[in-house]
C-alpha cells in the first residue's frame, strides 16, 4: 500500500469523529479518550508497512549501484588513464545534450549511432525471425526434416558470429549488408531451436482434442499450434535479440560506418575513454530495454 493512499484514509479516520465526537459524552470520571497515534491506526500501520516494502525493494539495488560506483572510482583513482564516475557523468551530460547533431559521415551524435545500430539489428533480426520461426515450426512438425537438419544446425550453431563476417563481405561485397548478415546468422538459431522445441512439446492432449473434433488444418494451427508454441517462440525471440545486440557492437567495430560499435572504436582512436565507458552503459541499457519489452509481450501470452 502506497503512502499516497494511506494518508487520505488516515485523515478520514480522524475526521470521521470516531474519537473526537464521542469524547464529550463520556462521563467525566472515565479516563479521557486518547487519540489513536498515527503508527497505531490501521492506515498508519499500512503506511509503515508500505514504506518498509519500498525500502526492501529499493535499498539492495541502490546499494549495489553505489558499491559499483565506489569500486569504479577507486580504480579510476589508482589508474589515471580511466576516467572516474563524475568525469564520465559530465561527459555524458554533454554528449546527450545534443544527441542528433550531424557533422558529416564520421562525426554524428550518439543518437544517430544508436539508431543506426538498432536499424541494422532490426533488419538482421527481422529477417532471422521471418526465416527462423517458420523453419522451427516445420522442424518441429516433421520428424524427417528434424533429422535432416539437426546435424547441420548442431555444427553451425556454436560458430562465433564474427566468423561469418568474411563470408558476408565476400558474397555481399559491402560492409553494411555484411554486418546485417552476421546479425541474421547469429540470431536465427535460438528462434529455430526454441520454436521447434515448442512444437515438439505440445501436449498430446491438445492434439487429441484436435483429432476428436476433426478440426481443419487451419483451425489446428490458429487455435492450437500457434497459441501453444507462442511462449516458446517468444523465448527464442528474446534470446535472439540478446545475441543480436551483443554481436552488433563487434560487427560494427570491424565494418565501420555509423553505429554504436564503430563509435566505440572511433573514440578509442581518439583516446576518449569517457565516451567508451558511456558507450558500454548505452549498449547495456538498450539491451536491457529490448529484453524487458519482449518479456512484457511474453507475459501477455503466458497461460500457466
Amino acid at each position, binding site marked *: 500500500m502506497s503512502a499516497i493512499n494511506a494518508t487520505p484514509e488516515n485523515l478520514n479516520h480522524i475526521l470521521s469523529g470516531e474519537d473526537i465526537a464521542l469524547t464529550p459524552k463520556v462521563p467525566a470520571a472515565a479516563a479521557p479518550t486518547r487519540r489513536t497515534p498515527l503508527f497505531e491506526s490501521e492506515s498508519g500501520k499500512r503506511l509503515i508497512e508500505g514504506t518498509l516494502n519500498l525500502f526492501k525493494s529499493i535499498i539492495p539495488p541502490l546499494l549495489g549501484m553505489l558499491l559499483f560506483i565506489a569500486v569504479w572510482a577507486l580504480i579510476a583513482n589508482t589508474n589515471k588513464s580511466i576516467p572516474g564516475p563524475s568525469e564520465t557523468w559530465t561527459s555524458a551530460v554533454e554528449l546527450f545534450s545534443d544527441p542528433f547533431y550531424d557533422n558529416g559521415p564520421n562525426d554524428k551524435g550518439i543518437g544517430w549511432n544508436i539508431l543506426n545500430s538498432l536499424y541494422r539489428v532490426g533488419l538482421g533480426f527481422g529477417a532471422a525471425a521471418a526465416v527462423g520461426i517458420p523453419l522451427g515450426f516445420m522442424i518441429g512438425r516433421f520428424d524427417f526434416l528434424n533429422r535432416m537438419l539437426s546435424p547441420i544446425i548442431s555444427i553451425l550453431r556454436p560458430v562465433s558470429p564474427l566468423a561469418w563476417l568474411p563470408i558476408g563481405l565476400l558474397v555481399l561485397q559491402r560492409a553494411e549488408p555484411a554486418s546485417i548478415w552476421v546479425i541474421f546468422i547469429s540470431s536465427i538459431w535460438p528462434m529455430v531451436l526454441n520454436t521447434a522445441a515448442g512444437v515438439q512439446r505440445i*501436449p498430446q*492432449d*491438445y492434439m*487429441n*482434442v484436435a*483429432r*476428436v*473434433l*476433426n*478440426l481443419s488444418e487451419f*483451425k489446428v494451427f490458429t*487455435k*492450437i499450434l500457434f*497459441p*501453444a508454441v507462442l511462449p516458446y517462440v517468444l523465448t527464442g525471440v528474446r534470446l535472439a535479440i540478446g545475441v543480436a545486440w551483443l554481436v552488433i557492437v563487434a560487427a560494427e567495430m570491424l565494418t565501420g560506418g555509423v553505429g554504436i560499435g564503430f563509435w566505440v572504436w572511433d573514440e578509442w582512436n581518439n583516446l576518449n575513454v569517457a565516451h567508451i565507458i558511456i558507450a558500454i552503459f548505452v549498449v547495456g541499457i538498450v539491451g536491457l530495454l529490448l529484453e524487458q519489452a519482449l518479456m512484457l509481450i511474453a507475459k501477455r*501470452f503466458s*497461460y*500457466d
Partner: protein
Amino acid sequence: MQSYVQIENASMVFSTKKGKFTALTDINLHVEQGEFIALIGHSGCGKSTLLNLVAGLLDATDGVLLLSNKEIKGPGPERGVVFQNHSLLPWLSAFENVYLAVEKVFGRSETKKQLKARTTAALELVGLTHAAAKLPGEISGGMKQRVGIARALAMEPKVLLMDEPFGALDALTRAHLQDELLKIVAATQSTVIMVTHDVDEAVLLSDRIVMMTNGPAATIGEILTVDLPRPRERLQLAHDPHYHDLRSKVLEFLYSRQMRPKEAA
C-alpha cells in the same frame, strides 16, 4: 437386433523399442443405446486403450469396432471424449472451448446465433453459466472438468466416452460431479462408456460394469449387471444391501481374483 456399439474380437498390439507389446486381446463387447458402461480394472490393464479404440484415437490391430453398424475409423465428433485431465485449451475461455466443438459439428447447418445458444445451453447444463468468460487457468479443477463434459455433450455425440473424468478431483468434488452426471445422463439419455478405477463410482453410475483382467494381453474378465433402479440416490444406496452386494462382487474380482502381481506394484 444389432447393438449400438459393437466390439468384435478386438486386440491391440503396440510396437515399442523393446519389441511388441500386446495390450488387449479378444475384446468382445456390445453396448446398447442409452446404456452406461463402466470399464474397471487395475492400472495398466488397458482400459484407457480400449476407450481410445472406441474413440478412434488408436486403431485396433485386429478385430472390428462398429458404431451403429458403421466401422470406427479414426476419431470423430459423433464420439464425444471427456479426457482425464480436462484438456481444455488454456488460451480460450470456457465458452470458446465449448464453442470450438459446437462450431465444428453444427457450423455448416446453423447460424452463429444458434451456435452460441447451443454453447450457452451446454454450459448451463453443467451449471457454469457464470464462468463462461473465464479462462481455464482461472477456474477450479472440478469446473474445468465440467467444461470438458459440456464440450463433449455440446457435440450431441452418439456415445460419450469418459476416461477417468473425475480421477484428478478431490472426493467431495468428485461426488458432486457424479451426481450431476447422473442427472445429465438421465436427461439426455446418452450412451456412455466410462473408464474408472473407483468401485463406488462404477456401481453408482453404470448399468453394467466391465471388469478387465490384468495386462499384458488384458481382456474382459467379467461383466456385472448393476440392476439398481434409477434414479439413484447416493445416500439411500449407502444403506442398500444390494448395492453393497454388487460393490463387494467388484471388489472381490479386483482384489482376490485379479490381485495385482507383486512385481508390478
